[in-house]
């Protein structure tokens, strides 16, 4: 005889969320989720953060998840609530961020009737999520919530949608406790010992090795980053990070070559091009990394560690595939390296480092800042000073970005020593990501310094979230590198389209100082280099949210750059360097 049901679906839902450890939900109410909001109102253990747009709710949950390693939780209504969330979901899918997004739905008997605020949410989000559910029976509700958290956080993390018809959350439902295992989804996390042995044999004999580590190391937890550092130190190998992997290895370490890829350093890209053994960990050989595929690191034997088997041999054929959690694989590599008595080719390694030092000597991130009074601020200099000042102040600092030139300059010039401090939209490249993401980070770390390095165009894509910052007194700092252009697009137009700046000038910009004021924040502005430090200090000292509008050189381009369709050894260096690199081919012009 079943026990009498006493709780509504909405209450069961919140109970399941609590059992999954949820403390914060980012959301926006609406008709289909009214019963859930009513249940939220009557409890105190889960905090709801009211955003101003559903896309921002997902980005905020991403910031929360990336800075804590926990699953981010989102609650939106049916129809437009769900469709607005889609950009955030795809962003989380591309960057492997664990999110559970609850969407309202019209009652089950109206599904398919084109009811008010009805959308086929599971249909729309199927390719936008790792997995999704439509709950059609009250008895499935609790189990589905538990499964969703398991799926979001196990294997390669990702977003999971649970579509909740209104009658399901109104009617009484039974509760089921979380179970440890999913009935079918059991991703492999332990590396194959024989593959680890092959990898170590290759690495021991390597003459020109490189470690190429990505966001998978960060997703594997801070222990994985510590193991990566140990492994690099024990081997003495050079190491480079992807955009997503920044912070998994301390940037100040002498073995660190900086970021690789389209806007990576000269030494990182040439070391990838010239290596004889490559150890890729939690990175997916994305087109922004490889450049022209048929010229990518042709002389190397490649080891690829990834928790997602479909990432292996997708773009680049590898010789030693290892499907495993990055942390577990690194642990096994460390043990096997220590146990192996095979000699390391020390003279060859020393030669390799001499070569890398020659490449380093190019100083590919070099720029020249005019330090005279009234000098125009170089965007790189603004980030360099932001880095130096925040580092000197020793406050725990988290950086988010929007998408574009400022993002790449931040990746190049802000140096991360620890994982989970850097939140950027890597795979999808979502303008408007940084502000809501910073909001989520600040909720998770109320006492930390959270800075959104932004461009003046990107920031306007989710500027409404200034209202959320005001409501919850979140002292997020928005640091705008304002060049009055959609800078990265302008740069491509300059390089590829004869400097025809089609629609990339940011006309009719708001007065960002007044805009901050209107949103109960503090606005400040730096027009020239002599004002920069004072503004950065004032921004950090300010107890409220800040928009710091930094007027930067409008003509500055982001270098180095591997033009689309070019190889790693065909990089364009900046105007500080002699002519370099290849021209852009017709095939390259077709690439993004």
């Amino acid at each position: 005889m079943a026990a009498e049901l006493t709780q509504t679906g909405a209450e069961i839902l919140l109970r399941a969320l609590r059992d999954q450890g949820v403390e914060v939900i980012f959301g926006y109410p609406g008709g289909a989720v009214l019963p859930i909001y009513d249940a939220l109102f009557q409890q105190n253990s889960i905090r709801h953060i009211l955003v101003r747009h559903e896309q921002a709710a997902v980005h905020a949950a991403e910031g929360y998840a990336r800075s804590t390693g926990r699953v981010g939780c989102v609650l939106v209504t049916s129809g437009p609530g769900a469709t607005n969330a889609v950009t955030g979901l795809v962003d989380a899918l591309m960057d492997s961020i664990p999110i559970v997004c609850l969407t309202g739905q019209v009652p089950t008997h109206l599904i398919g009737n084109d009811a008010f605020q009805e959308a086929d949410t599971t249909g729309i989000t199927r390719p936008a999520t790792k997995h999704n559910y439509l709950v059609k029976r009250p008895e499935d509700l609790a189990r589905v919530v538990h499964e969703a958290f398991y799926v979001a956080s196990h294997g390669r993390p990702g977003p999971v949608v649970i579509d909740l018809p209104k009658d399901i959350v109104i009617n009484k439902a039974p509760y089921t406790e979380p179970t440890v295992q999913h009935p079918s989804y059991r991703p492999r996390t332990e590396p194959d010992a024989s593959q680890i042995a092959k990898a170590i044999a290759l690495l021991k004999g390597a003459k020109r090795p490189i470690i190429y580590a990505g966001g998978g190391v960060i997703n594997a937890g801070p222990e994985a980053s510590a193991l990566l550092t140990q492994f690099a130190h024990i081997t003495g190998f050079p190491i480079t990070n992807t955009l997503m992997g920044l912070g998994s290895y301390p940037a100040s370490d002498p073995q660190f070559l900086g970021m690789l890829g389209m806007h990576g350093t000269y030494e990182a890209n040439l070391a990838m091009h010239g290596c004889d053994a490559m150890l890729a960990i939690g990175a997916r050989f994305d087109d922004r990394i490889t450049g022209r595929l048929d010229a990518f690191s042709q002389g190397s034997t490649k080891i690829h560690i990834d928790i997602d088997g479909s990432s292996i041999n997708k773009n680049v054929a590898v010789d030693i595939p290892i499907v495993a959690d990055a942390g577990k694989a690194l642990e096994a590599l460390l043990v096997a390296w220590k146990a192996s008595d095979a000699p390391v080719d020390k003279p060859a390694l020393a030669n390799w480092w001499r070569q890398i030092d020659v490449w380093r000597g190019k100083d590919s991130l070099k720029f020249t800042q005019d330090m005279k009074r009234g000098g125009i601020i170089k965007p790189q200099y603004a980030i360099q000073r932001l880095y130096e000042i925040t580092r000197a102040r020793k406050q725990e600092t988290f950086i988010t970005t929007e998408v574009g030139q400022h993002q790449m300059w931040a990746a190049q010039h802000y140096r991360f020593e620890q994982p989970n401090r850097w939140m950027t939209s890597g795979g999808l490249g979502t303008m408007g990501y940084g502000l809501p993401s910073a909001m989520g980070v600040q909720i998770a770390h109320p006492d930390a310094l959270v800075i959104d390095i932004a461009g003046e165009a990107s920031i306007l894509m989710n500027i409404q979230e200034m209202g959320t910052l005001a409501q919850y007194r979140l002292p997020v700092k928005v640091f705008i590198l304002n060049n009055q252009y959609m800078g990265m697009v302008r740069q491509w137009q300059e390089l590829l389209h004869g400097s025809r700046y089609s629609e990339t000038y940011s006309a009719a910009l708001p007065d960002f100082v007044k805009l901050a004021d209107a949103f109960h924040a503090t606005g400040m502005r730096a027009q020239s280099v002599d004002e920069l430090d004072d503004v950065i200090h004032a921004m950090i000292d300010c107890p409220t949210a800040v928009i710091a509008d930094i007027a930067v050189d409008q003509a500055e381009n982001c270098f180095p750059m591997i033009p689309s369709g070019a190889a790693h050894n065909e990089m364009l260096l900046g105007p500080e360097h002699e002519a370099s690199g290849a021209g852009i081919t017709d095939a390259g012009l077709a690439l993004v």
Partner: protein
Amino acid sequence: MTSPTDTTQRSATISVLVDNEAGVLARVIGLFSGRGYNIDSLTVAPVDEEHLRSRINIVTSGTSMVIEQIKAQLDRLVPVHRVADLTMDGPHVARELALVKVICTGEQRVEALQIGDTFRARVVDTTLGSFVFELTGATDKIDAFIDLMRNLGLAEVSRSGIAALARGSRVI
């Protein structure tokens, strides 16, 4: 070893054991269309009432690297239990069923019936002016039958797509 430079196309018969839940077929088809893979044939039906499993059989084509990708992409879908590449894993049997409507009279009727006999097709419906043949077999056998019927009043074809199993004692 797969190589990105190997452009040789091969055909692959892939069987996928999935949870019999709403949307699972859309998930598999969406994977193929979203990533630009070919589907030459597709069948799906429940095969295990006890564990609520369905079996999807897909015939696809691509380079070895693409087919390895397809298998890996299928394998990471949450409701997917098993993925088997019947073409690579050893010998297998693949059969499909076709219903073929032929509209003809006189000499052509006799000819169509004789060819049907040769192919061991059964006549499952007949009128004075038409037949419906039922035919099972490998895809090329059915293709051959349909080709022959073209000159004998072929009017309509309905095919099931293939069902496939590994030969011997191997199971998915």
